[in-house]
């Protein structure tokens, strides 16, 4: 399924609050600012729980772009596009970094918790969080671009 977020839901754009798009540098403080702006855009029409789910999901995906797709490159750019339609937030994240390993979204198995403190993982939760908070998660490599799309279902408010 190919959805062009620049066209879908165009009839709703009159409200001005149904979509959000931003291009920003792939570095942690720019990610913070993009998260703040994205959450602020939808905060009035979604529940605090859904706003939290949106922020956490986007943070995990965007941190992954910064740390793995661009992996320290200073010139990376990220395109984030969100639209609010049909009881969900439709999200699209694109970058020109390295492709996902094996061109697939990692499984996201949670690290074990029943181990000695010294053996606890200090990471590896990101994709599990993303998989748990989203629907229709899909990845494609399009030329030199990575494109990740998913939906965050919203509570009926």
């Amino acid at each position, binding site marked *: 399924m190919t959805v062009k977020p620049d066209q879908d839901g165009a009839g709703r754009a009159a409200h001005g609050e149904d979509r959000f798009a931003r291009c920003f540098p792939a570095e*942690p*403080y720019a*990610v*913070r600012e993009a998260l703040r702006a994205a959450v602020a855009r939808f905060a009035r029409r979604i529940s*605090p*729980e859904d706003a*939290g789910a949106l*922020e*956490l999901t986007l*943070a*995990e995906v965007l*941190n992954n772009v*910064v*740390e793995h797709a661009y992996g320290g490159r200073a010139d990376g750019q990220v395109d984030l596009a969100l639209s609010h339609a049909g009881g969900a937030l439709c999200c699209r994240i694109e970058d020109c970094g390295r492709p996902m390993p094996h061109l697939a979204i990692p499984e996201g198995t*949670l690290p074990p*918790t*029943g181990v000695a*403190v*010294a053996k*606890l*993982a*200090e*990471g*590896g*939760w*990101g994709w*599990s*969080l993303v998989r*748990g*908070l989203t629907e229709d998660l899909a990845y494609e490599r399009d030329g030199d671009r990575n494109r990740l799309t998913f939906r965050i279902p919203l509570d009926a408010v």
Partner: protein
Amino acid sequence: MNLMTESGPDALVVRVHEERIDAAVAIQFKDRMRELTAGGEGPVILDLSRVDFVDSSGLGAIVAAMKVLAPLRRLDLAALTPNVARVFRLTRMDDVFRILPEAPAAEGRIRAAE
């Protein structure tokens, strides 16, 4: 990274005066926790009541702080806000940490940590 410590009767309380522990500050958080707890003894309670957002990088930094203190000292967490509690629940790290519903009340001897 604004962290304040208080020496309580039963534990060292570290109060996080930041809204976020995320990828942008995870390394600073880990380093500050190491400095603030160095050379002490007894349990440490991390007061997260002012923190509204923790991502997996922030969670990793909290786990790293726990590992620095172990095996002789424990790190407990207190006063998780709903968003932060959800991250611990979804990652099952709420099984790993002792989580207190409220942070210990402020006592007399307070010193600014930064």
